[in-house]
């Protein structure tokens, strides 16, 4: 992590700025989705602009959270083996969130 400080600095702030409007959208969207059936959810998730914003969300957030948690790992875990294993788990978790999130939105646009 420490060797790519400038890249991470820029990426963390870039994704942060993207996520502010996306978070506001997601909160309002989630409120409108309260109590909806699966059919209504599929219709909403597959609306082109909602799908696009959700895909942007599921790409931006894993980038942001893997850098943030990576920094916490660097600061608090000092044993070499434990640290690199935790870094790997952090990357795997971010990848899973990204792939499952984007994959689900794409799958929904295909089936709905």
């Amino acid at each position: 992590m420490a060797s790519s400080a400038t890249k991470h600095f820029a990426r963390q702030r870039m994704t942060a700025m993207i996520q502010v409007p996306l978070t506001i959208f997601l909160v309002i969207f989630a409120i409108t989705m309260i109590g909806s059936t699966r059919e209504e959810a599929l219709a909403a998730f597959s609306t082109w602009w909602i799908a696009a914003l959700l895909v942007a969300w599921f790409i931006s957030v894993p980038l942001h959270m893997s850098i943030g948690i990576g920094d916490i790992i660097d600061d608090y875990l000092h044993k070499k083996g434990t640290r690199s294993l935790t870094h790997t788990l952090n990357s795997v978790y971010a990848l899973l969130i990204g792939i499952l999130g984007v994959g689900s939105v794409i799958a929904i646009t295909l089936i709905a």
Partner: protein
Amino acid sequence: MSDTAARAPEDAVRQVSFIPGQNAPMSPHLQVWKFTVTMAASITQRITGGANAAGMALLVLWVASAAISESFYDAVTGFLGSWFGLVILAGFTLSVMFHMLNGLRYLGFDAGKGISRAASSNSGWAVFLLAPVLTAIIFFAGFTLGGAN
């Protein structure tokens, strides 16, 4: 000893030998700190960041369940709508609101705005106040204007 005493007084003051593990200072220091709101906001930013990462699993579960099956979707939304699910969602919302507001504060700092001691402290208090207020507004909106009502 006689060596040090022979030197000029200002040299004797500067000449301090630290032995790691005995008298050398350690960093990061987790035992000695002073409470300031900027420090509290900083550590809360880290804690909420971690909580948000965990919360992302719930968000993915929600979207994925809609893709998978009706019974799975009903199970996930049923859980999120239960009192236990709502408590988790309230915590997640509070965590996201704090992280977003404090993150905006840091983006301001990066741009050189509000970095004086008074301004950074005031904006820190404001974030701690605004995050629960926004969460309350979101939950009020959810219970009154939400899709189910």
